[in-house]
């Protein structure tokens, strides 16, 4: 698993696309920080970490998902991975942690923003802490979804588009709830990936959202493993 993580990191930082992703994240997060913190003349970070940064995360995970399995399949390097003496779980977890580390590297820019607030105001470290925990959990579930989608297709573009589409659907899923019977509408309302993030932005560390994000992560990682396994049997 460590070998896969290492390979992901080396590959990400050696390719222009890696630096492009970091640049996009930094640029967009800087705009959001200016809009929601500096222009609002506040030290509250909840609005910054909320709605719009979610979209940025979606785009970044979408771009990252191209590299997970679609690219390996396209370049036939999956033959090396699948014929090596590691299990599919190790392979998928290696990819997952690799992507998570890459994403966390992107989010390091947030510490710079915290420093700015610390110089000119007071940082609410409790709120910052819950937002960071929430971000890690959300990103984990998004990456797991991206891994699953990437295992479905050989096309890197399709993987990115489908990942963004699915994440967007999970973002607006409660809008569709009104078209369904009550029992299903309830489930859909709770399925909204953003709604679960509210507590974190308000500085609350609640168990249900944590369980929600962990469940999504585990389920989609499991589905990614099953999908790769299924492709071997088809």
């Amino acid at each position, binding site marked *: 698993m*460590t*070998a*896969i993580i*290492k*390979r992901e990191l*080396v*590959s990400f930082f*050696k*390719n222009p696309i890696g630096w492009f992703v970091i640049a996009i994240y930094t640029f967009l997060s800087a705009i959001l920080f200016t809009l929601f913190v500096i222009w609002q003349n506040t030290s509250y970070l909840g609005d910054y970490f909320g709605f719009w940064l979610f979209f940025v995360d979606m785009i970044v995970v979408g771009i990252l998902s191209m590299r997970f399995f679609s690219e390996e399949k396209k*370049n*036939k*390097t*999956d*033959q*090396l*991975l*699948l*014929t*090596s*003496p*590691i*299990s599919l779980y190790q392979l998928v977890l290696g990819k997952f942690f690799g992507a998570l580390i890459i994403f966390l590297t992107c989010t390091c820019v947030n510490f710079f923003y915290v420093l700015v607030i610390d110089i000119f105001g007071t940082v609410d470290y409790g709120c910052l802490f819950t937002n960071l925990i929430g971000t890690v959990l959300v990103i984990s579930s998004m990456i797991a979804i991206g891994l699953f989608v990437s295992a479905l297709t050989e096309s890197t573009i399709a993987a990115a588009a489908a990942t963004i589409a699915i994440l967007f659907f999970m973002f607006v899923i409660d809008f569709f709830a009104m078209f369904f019977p009550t029992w299903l509408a309830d489930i859909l309302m709770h399925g909204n990936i953003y709604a679960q993030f509210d507590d974190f932005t308000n500085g609350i560390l609640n168990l249900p959202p944590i369980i929600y994000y962990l469940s999504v992560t585990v389920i989609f990682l499991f589905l990614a493993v099953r999908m790769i396994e299924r492709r*071997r*049997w088809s």
Partner: protein
Amino acid sequence: MITVSGLTKRYGNKIAVNNISFTINQGDIVGILGPNGAGKTTTMNMITGYISSHAGKISVDGHDLLEEPSKAKASIGYLPEIPPLYHDMTVREYLSFVYDLKGCSKKENIKKKKEHLAEVCEVVKITGVYNRLIKNLSKGYKQRVGLAQALIGDPPILILDEPTAGLDPKEIVEIRNLIKRLGSRRTVLLSSHILSEVQAICERIIIMNEGFIVMDALADDLTMRMGANSRYGVRLAAPEDADVIGVLGALPGVAKIEYVGSFEKGTIDFIIEAEKKTDIRRLLFEECAKRNWYILMITPLGMSLEDIFIQLVSQNDEQRALEAKNREKEKNARSAPNNNAEEKKDGKIGEVKDGDKNDGNY
């Protein structure tokens, strides 16, 4: 070393590999030969665990591939048709990654990373490009890096899928020699659709066509089995006016005789071919002795592997067509009595015959 039994793989309705079985012993260099679409790559992909089979069992180095996949895979070094290379890595980074991926650092019998990689690079002769990006290497070097990847961890079995595909003649010879060297202390299974390649490298050949094993034999036996004793190159010392071709061509059992030329003074060279399952050597000798013609040289000319392959594949096709025809006949024969019985039961059989007769009379 490798035991395959009843292996089957389907892609939708198409059966890519159809119930094949074979065993490869330790130290064997075996070639799987067949045209494109014969099922060679699918077979190799199943043995290496890249894809799963729909039926059958695979055992590698005593480990069942389904029950102990990690142990079975650890015994194999696999070079697919397109080497699985990361073009954004240098050779050093790539081989280091493969070393970690195969968990070599935990194996007691494997040397430390630096030494092991240096050793493998030395064997496949890529030391000169060790620090270069893979994407900048020539096709031949990429193939060597792919081979180096397969050798990492010192696996006792090497599986090579069309290892010389797309290389230039010089590189082909070099890679062939390299495989031969590697095969001296390893079990090697390689596939190719280039017959001369398999002939040059392998001791045993498995011929596949449309998912079936058409033949499994030692390379030398294969040629002999397919009629090497029926074709000879002969050099004969005979008077200039003698009608050698006419006389010998008229012998019973001679299918064909072909004049080749005169390469020594007072001699002629020809190729004589006997009918199937006929040994013409004695008759040839007796006829020549009777006429005081001296046989200076007689060389059995085995069929080339190309000839054998075409013959086997066409035989296999004919056999399967015959089997299909027989099955159809049996099916018809089985259904015919039932039809008759039904017709008798309805009391229609006589009526029909009468009707036929009437039609004829009119």
